[in-house]
């Protein structure tokens, strides 16, 4: 009895830890600030219902509401807020120490937190996207948008979880990325689309829905490869960063 309770149980390499997942989930959804996640999807569905009720042209509705608001604003903002807070808020509160001092591989901690962030973001965005696509045009459009933005949530989450480990003001840098790189340069300089998650998501949604209303901006293969490379690459960097993570007090 005594020996088994002092020696850590033997275990293989695990990528997911249910205890950390439940703690992260509670930290994410169990507070008042989780209410911040409600308005964005509501506005998306509400505006879709509005354009559908006014019989606006589907091309316009898709480009303004579904792409302009859904893919370009709601998806990255949701992923940013969730992705930077799964680890960032624990660093702010100092509770990250309690998790880092447990005899768990850092990879297990990081991947669990990433998975929670990605799944929550995907659910928060994909459900209203499905409804909006359904309201505006058809179920296939809704499914395409939902699957596309769910994939996008996984890519964005990896990016923002890494950012929250590398940069102290990750939210601001993330906002700058969304506003300047994807919002401005993505529409001015055509070449930046290869490095724009928003464009991958549009491509996936266009391909899956098969709808003539959505135009894929790039080739599907490039989008798949780039999304995969970006996700895996940022996760590797994030794991590496968490291995040598030092907890410092808040400065300026």
């Amino acid at each position, binding site marked *: 009895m005594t020996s088994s309770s002092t020696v850590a149980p033997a275990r293989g390499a695990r990528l997911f830890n249910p205890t950390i997942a439940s703690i992260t989930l509670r930290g994410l959804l169990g507070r008042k*600030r989780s209410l*911040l996640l409600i*308005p*964005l999807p509501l*506005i998306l569905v509400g*505006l879709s219902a*509005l*354009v559908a009720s*006014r019989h*606006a*042209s589907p091309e*316009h*509705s898709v480009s*303004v*509401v579904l792409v*302009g*608001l859904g893919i370009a*604003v*709601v998806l990255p*903002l949701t992923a*940013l*807020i969730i992705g*930077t*807070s799964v680890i*960032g*808020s624990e660093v*702010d509160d100092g509770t990250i120490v309690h998790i880092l001092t447990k005899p768990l591989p850092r990879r297990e901690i990081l991947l669990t937190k990433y998975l929670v962030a990605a799944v929550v973001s995907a659910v928060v965005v994909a459900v209203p996207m499905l409804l909006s696509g359904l309201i505006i045009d058809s179920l296939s459009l809704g499914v395409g948008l939902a699957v596309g933005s769910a994939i996008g949530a996984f890519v964005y989450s990896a990016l923002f979880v890494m950012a929250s480990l590398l940069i*102290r*003001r*990750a*939210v*601001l840098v993330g*906002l*700058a990325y*969304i*506003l*300047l790189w994807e*919002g*401005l340069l993505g529409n001015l300089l055509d070449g930046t689309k290869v490095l724009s998650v928003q464009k991958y998501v549009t491509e996936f949604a266009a391909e899956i829905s098969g709808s003539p209303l959505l135009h894929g901006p790039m080739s599907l293969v490039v989008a798949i490869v780039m999304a995969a490379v970006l996700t895996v690459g940022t996760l590797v960097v994030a794991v590496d960063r968490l291995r040598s993570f030092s907890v410092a007090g808040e*400065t*300026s």
Partner: protein
Amino acid sequence: MADVANTGTIHDIGYQRYTGQRLGRGHAVRSLYVYSFRTVFGMGRSAKAKIFPFSVAGILLVIAVVAAAVKAQFKVEIPQLSYVDFPGTLSFLLVLLLAAVAPELASRDLRNKVLPLYFSRPIGRDDYVLAKLAALVTAVSLILAVPLFVMFLGGAFSGSGLSGAWGQFTDFLPGLLNAVIYAIVLSAVALLIASLSSRRTIAAGAVVAVFLVTTPISGVLQVVGTETMRQLASLFSITGILSGLRNWLFGGSAEPAIGSFGPLYAGAAVVLVALCTALLVYRYRKVAS
């Protein structure tokens, strides 16, 4: 023994009364204003705190220099970067700036729970709010005014004599006024949102979310509406109200078309600022301290 008892002092740990001049409420408010203004630019803080405000100000300045150079060299105006259109065209940079600095002003004091220290001074809760807001408005106006002034200098000295310079000056003044209007409206909204969260990251996200989400709303109304509806659509977004007001007051670019609803846009801007300021004052009367 008796001597010691008669001195009557058990512990003298050196507390001294302040005997200097008391500078009063006005001075306290002015100090808070100056301090907050410095906070916006990260002055008196580490280099990290200066990165964001100065890089946004730098980008705006570079854009202004390029616009002025193009105007002087090739004698072509870039219509989106005229004096009055400058803040509207680059409003996304202003939003980013406000997302960075408004939480510095509002959220940090809430998070560190230092409001009781402020309010135990001869400074009222309303004074606190108004000093912070005034500092933010001043700073944003300055960040906009410097590029405009550079553009004016470029225009004034690129030949065509005194009349040309005077013509530039009469274009520059409305641009400056417009920049101040932008600063007032954007700052009031951003500071209100930032004051709702004690966490700077959440506040920054919320500021950007409010600006980004209201823009497509007016975009949607432009798509679905009738002619009148289209002219009113920009009232539903903060940047739309500002560009509508600009078009009514100063001409500026054709977008958005506002028809004869100019005064309504002016009213909307005034109501928005008044409402945000009132809510800020209300919030700080209630906030736990």
